[in-house]
């Protein structure tokens, strides 16, 4: 049984009288790929925003690596080993792919030298090449990020997230807006990372989720209604009902 890497206790978020997330207890195990699914408005994005530190919970606690991160802002959470990738791709458009990744790597450094050229940073570039090789973007290394295809930009965003050598990746709809082959690229990458990095993803695309994850948590109206392996969830009647008769 793996260690718990991320845990929430009674996580709740209200917006006025609307309870978007209600008393959610999550337990994510090290090395797993967990999917957070549910119909529109189920509260998935709100959970993501709270886990990443962009939104404070109304009540409840979040624990990461046995440290409470409930009210921490995002940059503190990311410095503790959690990396984020957003639904709307968030990269540095006018920088090259290499510069994007190098910038991400440098974020971990305490001190940046104003006298050296960043293009002379051999150690940094070695690490950049490692990462680009890993995610399959080597051939685009010198291209400007905004000129990449949508799918490659998503992959670049993952490279940025991986640059900090995180223990856990939190992804919000990583396949959003991607074509079938682009989605394939992302899925392959995630499968490769499986076991090495704990991954939690919010996703709409049921096919993608089913084949990729170790286990699923299903959210509806802000509450967990079911948890388990994909095969179990597939046949869960309550889940089927919630997705309005979609057959799996």
């Amino acid at each position, binding site marked *: 049984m793996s260690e718990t890497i991320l845990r929430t206790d009674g996580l709740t978020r209200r917006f006025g009288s609307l309870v978007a997330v209600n008393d959610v207890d999550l337990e994510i195990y090290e090395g797993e790929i967990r999917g957070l699914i549910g119909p529109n408005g189920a509260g998935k994005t709100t959970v993501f925003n709270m886990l990443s530190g962009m939104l404070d919970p109304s009540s409840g606690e979040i624990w990461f690596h046995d440290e409470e991160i409930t009210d921490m802002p*995002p*940059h503190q959470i*990311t*410095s503790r080993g959690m990396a*984020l990738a957003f639904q709307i791709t*968030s*990269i*540095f*458009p*006018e*920088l090259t792919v290499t*510069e994007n990744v*190098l*910038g*991400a790597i*440098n*974020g*971990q*450094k305490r001190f*940046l*030298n*104003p*006298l*050296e*050229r*960043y*293009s002379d*940073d051999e150690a940094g570039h070695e690490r950049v090449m490692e990462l680009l090789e890993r995610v399959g973007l080597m*051939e685009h290394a*010198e*291209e400007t990020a905004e000129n990449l*295809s949508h*799918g*490659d930009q998503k992959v670049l965003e993952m490279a*940025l997230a991986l*640059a*900090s050598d995180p223990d856990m990746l939190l992804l919000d709809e990583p396949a959003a807006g991607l*074509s079938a*082959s*682009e989605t394939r690229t992302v899925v392959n990458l995630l499968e490769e990372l499986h076991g090495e990095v704990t991954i939690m993803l919010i996703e709409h695309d049921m096919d993608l989720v089913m084949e990729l994850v170790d286990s699923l948590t299903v959210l509806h109206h802000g509450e967990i209604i079911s948890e388990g392996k994909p095969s179990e969830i597939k046949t869960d009647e309550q889940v089927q009902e919630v997705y309005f008769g979609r057959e799996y």
Partner: protein
Amino acid sequence: MTRNIETPLGTLTPTNGAWIALAAIAVIYPFTVDNFLLFLGASVLALGLYGASFDLIYGYTGLLSFGHAAFYGVGAYAATFAIQDYGQGVLTAMLVGFLVTAVIAIGLGLIAIRVSSHGFVIVTILIVLIANLAAVSLTSITGGTDGMSVIIPELALPMLGEFSMLNPMFRYFFVLAVVGVSLMAMNRLVNSPIGLVFRMIRDNEQRARMLGYNVTVYKLIAFSVSGAFAGVAGVLSMYVTGFVSASHFALIVSGDAVIYTLVGGRATLIGAILGAVLIEGASNFVSGITDVYPLIIGAILLFTVIFEPEGVVGMSHRVRDWLQDRGVLPGGDEPESPTDPDADPGATEVTTDE
């Protein structure tokens, strides 16, 4: 994608090629022209530095500072007081100008940066408007819009003798040297890891923050360095003309920095120099322009932002790419289309994306 040209002395990239060309022109120029043009050349170089300082904060860091005229003016006046009231020499006065402006830039930066991103611009506008108000009304100190002339001491260079700013040749080369050193310093900064952070902040501040950077500190660094060099440019202008006035603080002077950078091409440093050359050159040689100068500047600004936001450098890149693709210049993309007469029918590029 463009390739670089290999020469025996090293790689010639488009960027350092442009720098080298400009440096060559700048050095040869003074030997080919008369005193008036020497004077103009020195002025334009100083204004180019002013523009480049703005490029640092706007082109590289993405912060639109409309208050740069304030730093320009402060630099000029700080050096003036150092000379007139404290009897300092040319180099010391310039250092004073640099440092005083840097300190003020840090102070003002602390206010401006903490307001929201749109608020930042507004605060910088307020800075220059208030500075202008103060400078224009405190006539006894600043000389108001009529200004005051400054007697600049001679500079003693070891083994070479004493030189006066009234000597057009010396003045030109002095300005060229200072501008050159300043540009090199700024270039160093933008090519350093810190410069990379500047551009990250410009492109996606939120993401930069998430990657662990203290964005406020980096903005402050950019703003202070940028302001300090605007101050140096102010000092140089004063040396060239022998004159300071409150009109250094006018809003349109802030606008000049913007226009040099936009017209020349932002995020290049050298674009601002080009822009200054073009704009100031044009306004001096096209007659009748001085009367309607603001009108022309306004029209150029509108034209540039709507049609050509990357300025002359951007246009030149497009021209260069066009020439390279047609084989006129070395470098350039592999021909892709099978109907291209230059293409090898067996070597069509295979793209791995859809």
